[in-house]
C-alpha cells in the first residue's frame, strides 16, 4: 500500500484509478479544504486537456484488415525464424562433421609423424650400433695385424733358418753358436705360445 500525497490522489481520482476507501478520504479532505478542491479541479482539467489530443480512428473494416495483417506478419516472421534456425542447425551439423573429420585427420597425421620420428630414431640407433660394431671389429683386426717388431723377429727367424740350413755341420760344432741357436729357438717357441702366428689368408 503506497501512501499518496494530495496531488497524487487527485491525479489517480481524475484518471479513475483511485480505490473507494482512499476516494472517500480524498472527498472528505476536499470538503474541509477548498484549496484541495481547486487543486483537484485543476488536475481534472489538465488531464482533460491531454485526453483532447485526437487518437487515430479506424473503421471496423480497417481494424479487421490491420489485425489480420499484424497476425499474418507475426506468422510470417515466425516461419522465417524457424527456417533460419533450421538452416543454422544444418550448418552447425556440417561444421561439426567437418571439425570431426579434421580432428581425425589431424590425429592420424600426428600418429604418422610420431611413427616416422620413432622409426628414424631407431634407424639412427641401429646405424650407431652397426658403426660401433664395425669400429670394434676394425679395432680387433688392427690389434691382430703383425707389428713391425713381429716382422723384424720373423725376418731374424727366417735368417736363422737359412743360416742353419747353409751351415749345418760347422755351425753345430761351434759351441757358442749352438748355444745361441738354442736360445733363439726357445725365444721363438715362447713367442709362438704367447702369440700364435697368423693363419694364411687371414687379415
Amino acid at each position, binding site marked *: 500500500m503506497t501512501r499518496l500525497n494530495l496531488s497524487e490522489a487527485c491525479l*489517480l481520482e481524475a484518471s479513475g484509478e483511485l480505490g473507494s476507501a482512499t476516494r472517500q478520504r480524498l472527498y472528505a479532505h476536499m470538503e474541509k479544504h477548498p484549496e484541495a478542491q481547486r487543486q483537484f479541479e485543476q*488536475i481534472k*482539467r*489538465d488531464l482533460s*486537456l491531454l485526453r483532447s489530443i485526437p487518437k*487515430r480512428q479506424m473503421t471496423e473494416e480497417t481494424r479487421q484488415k490491420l489485425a489480420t495483417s*499484424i497476425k499474418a506478419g507475426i506468422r510470417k516472421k515466425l516461419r522465417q525464424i524457424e527456417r533460419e534456425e533450421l538452416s543454422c542447425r544444418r550448418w552447425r551439423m556440417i561444421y561439426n562433421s567437418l571439425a570431426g573429420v579434421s580432428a581425425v585427420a589431424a590425429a592420424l597425421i600426428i600418429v604418422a609423424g610420431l611413427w616416422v620420428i620413432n622409426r628414424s630414431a631407431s634407424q639412427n640407433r641401429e646405424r650407431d650400433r652397426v658403426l660401433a660394431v664395425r669400429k670394434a671389429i676394425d679395432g680387433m683386426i688392427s690389434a691382430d695385424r703383425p707389428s713391425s717388431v713381429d716382422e723384424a723377429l720373423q725376418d731374424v727367424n727366417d735368417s736363422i733358418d737359412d743360416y742353419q740350413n747353409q751351415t749345418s755341420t760347422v755351425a753345430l760344432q761351434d759351441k757358442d753358436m749352438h748355444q745361441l741357436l738354442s736360445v733363439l729357438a726357445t725365444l721363438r717357441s715362447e713367442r709362438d705360445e704367447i702369440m700364435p702366428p697368423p693363419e694364411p689368408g687371414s687379415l
Partner: protein
Amino acid sequence: MDARAIAELLSRCQAGDQTAWDALVDAYWQRLFGYALRVTGNAELAQDLVQETFLRIVQRLGKYDDQGKFEAWLFRILVNLVRDHGRSRLRHPTQSTVIESDGERIEMTDELAAKVPAPHEPLHHREDVDALQVALRKLPEGDRQILMLRHFADMPFKDIARTLNCPIGTVLARAHRALGKLRSMMEVSHDKTESQ
C-alpha cells in the same frame, strides 16, 4: 481483460494453442499500435514494432512466469523497441497514416477524441490540436512517455509504473509535472493567438 483471463490465455499459448495466440493479439494490438503510431508517427513502422513485440513474446513465453504483470511486460518490450529503433529517426519522423499490406491500402484518420474543455475553452480549432501536439513533443522524453502511455495506450498509472520499472509515486509526480507544463505551454500559445 482481467488477470485470470490473461493467465488462462497465456497458459494456452504456452501449450501452443493457435487460437489463444490470435485472442492475445486481438486483446492488445490496438493499444500497442495506438502508442507506437503516436510515438513514431508512421503507421507502417508502428505495425512492424507491434509485430516485433508479439514476436518477442512468442519467443520468451516459454520461460515467462505470469504474476499478473503481463501487460506491463508487453508494453515494456514495445517501449524498449521504440527507444531502440533510434531516437534520431523519431526526432524527424516520417508522418504516415497509410499502411501498404499485401497490395492492400489501410488508411487512418485523426478525429477529435472528445469534446472536453481546454485550459479556458473547448478545443474546437485544428490549430489548438496542433499546438497541443507540439507542446507534447516539447516535453522531456520521460514525462512525454508517461502521458503517451496513459492516453494513447489507455494504460493505468499503476501499469505505467510497472512498465517503466519505477515507483508509482515517481510516475504520478512526473505526470503531474508534465500536465502542468502542457497547460502552461497551451496558455502561452493561447496568449499569442489572442494578441495576434
